[in-house]
């Protein structure tokens, strides 16, 4: 995997960071809505 590691982990890493960011922002909005 080493030869293509940058491409594979670049794809998986950015995907999960973006999904996690969306969840974080949504949960923050949800908390702010409740308060």
């Amino acid at each position: 995997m080493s030869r293509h590691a940058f491409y594979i982990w670049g794809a998986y890493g950015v995907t999960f960071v973006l999904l996690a960011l969306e969840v974080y922002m949504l949960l923050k909005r949800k908390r702010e809505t409740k308060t």
Partner: protein
Amino acid sequence: MTTDSIKWFGYSSPQTFFPLAGRIARICAVLAVVFGVAGLYTGLFVAPTDATQGEVYRVIFIHVPAAWMSMFLYVVMAFWAAVGLSFNTRLSFLMARALAPTGALFTFIALWTGSLWGKPTWGTWWVWDARLTSELILLFLYFGFIALQASIDERRRADRAGAVLAIVGVVNIPIIYYSVKWWNTLHQGASVSFTKAPSMAATMFTGMILMALCFWMYSIAVALTRVRCEIAENP
């Protein structure tokens, strides 16, 4: 009209839908984690190395499900926009509004992962071929929908304007899907279709379907949570 059908119509009221959306979102969030863990395990550890592409093909387990979701979410968004425009139902517009950011996110992920897959296999990050260009137009349609709604202060007018854009833009979906058939493209044809058996190993196919289910459940959970925020903010 039966009692059951009246109950279903009752859920078209945002206040009645609010607790139901919370329950469905929680179930879908759990399913997204389950499918995600199973899909990643299958894709990264069980599926064999591809004979021609080597390990880099494993981007497929993110790229293809994300591309499916980008198109599917747009169709669902346009559907709710059309329902809202036809029946003037607030919840339909809320659904369309809630789906747009997640749809845009999956479109970006499809483009990003496609680019990272394209470089080692095609020798380039990007080409202006029909599939890639029409997918980029989809991203701009999502951005246009979000920006248009944000730019109009009056909520009803914003919803109606966004709905028209969403419905007109749906013409781009068959163009994306059939672009690899209608034009000569660098992008490969569909590996999975409704009419043919998949042209890949069973474990590869299973991993891809599990990741697609993960993204599907994730989208439902996130969109319903966003609808709940919208309802709570504008009761």
